[in-house]
């Protein structure tokens, strides 16, 4: 019996075809990788490889002379597409300007838009996020907003033209998983753009659950980069995302209050 990994018959085939589209661009991998928290560029490269991610985040900070190696070169070598974020911005104004600088620096008009409400929880500031999203969409950006799990805000973000919505499962880096699956389901039910679970995933089953709820993809940073063995966790979460996606498509059995025998009752012996 070959283990799951080393056989690529039909099923794998099927999986290859199950793509999704953001801003007109087709994506095969449903795991987006955040680059924050990797202990070295080597660890990052290994993590990207193991994750299978096609789209990875980067941030902008003031140059510091001491900076070793070039992150951009490593990402280019990995052949991934960059998704700049606006991490650390607490106002719509700063987020918009940061997005414009990122477009300049990375030659992409895609942006993972973050407008943070406080440093303690790093939760998004709903009104400021919506304001910044609208301005950036008008400015020609492909906007992927990091949002909370509010179904109404998700709809407003789509209404102003965001290319996807990225609700959180729980606070960034908390590893608490999906605190409110119900809201995520509501978001998915009403969304006309891809829903990407962002923030909170702690382990593979969290990622699988997100996909089973109908999310189109999952973005992970700390769960992978800060795991004891980042490359192995990258692979674990990659498989979790795929497992959840396949389960979503396979049509799970309903939950029953009582048992249902998996062995028929008829024909039982009477000794």
């Amino acid at each position, binding site marked *: 019996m070959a283990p799951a990994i080393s056989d690529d018959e039909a099923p794998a085939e099927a999986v290859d075809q199950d793509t999704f589209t953001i801003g007109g661009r087709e994506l095969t991998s449903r795991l987006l990788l955040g680059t924050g928290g990797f202990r070295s560029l080597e660890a990052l490269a290994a993590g990207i490889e193991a994750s299978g991610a096609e789209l990875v985040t980067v941030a902008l900070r003031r140059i510091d002379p001491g900076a070793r190696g070039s992150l951009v070169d490593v990402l280019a070598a990995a052949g991934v597409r960059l998704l700049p974020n606006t991490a650390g911005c607490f106002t719509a104004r700063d987020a918009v300007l940061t997005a414009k600088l990122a477009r300049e*620096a990375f030659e992409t008009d895609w942006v993972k838009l973050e407008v943070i409400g406080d440093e303690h929880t790093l939760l998004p500031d709903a009104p400021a996020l919506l304001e910044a999203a609208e301005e950036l969409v008008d400015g020609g950006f492909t906007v992927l907003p990091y949002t909370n799990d509010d179904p109404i805000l998700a709809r407003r973000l789509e209404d102003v033209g965001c290319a996807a919505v990225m609700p959180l499962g729980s606070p960034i880096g908390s590893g608490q998983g999906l605190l409110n699956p119900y809201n995520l389901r509501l978001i998915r039910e009403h969304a006309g753009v891809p829903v990407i679970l962002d923030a909170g995933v702690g382990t593979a089953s969290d990622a699988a659950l997100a996909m089973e709820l109908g999310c189109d993809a999952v973005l992970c940073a700390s769960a992978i980069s800060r795991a004891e063995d980042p490359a192995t966790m990258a692979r674990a979460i990659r498989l979790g995302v795929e497992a959840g996606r396949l389960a979503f498509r396979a049509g799970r059995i309903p939950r029953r209050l009582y048992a249902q025998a998996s062995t028929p009752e008829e024909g039982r012996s009477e000794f």
Partner: protein
Amino acid sequence: MNVLVNGEPTELEHGATVEAVLASLELPDRGVAVAVDAEVVPRGEWPAHELSEGARVEVLRAIQGG
């Protein structure tokens, strides 16, 4: 002429350009962007864009994040 480069007070001769400022910093050739007084200065304008007294220059580079 005094300007702020990434928050650091810096003295430059009058009419210095963005490019002049960048020259003094070891920059990677990719993943860099510059803002002056909260406005983006596209790479193409670095040579021509002259700074004025008190300008706030932000020179940013790619880092791991998100």
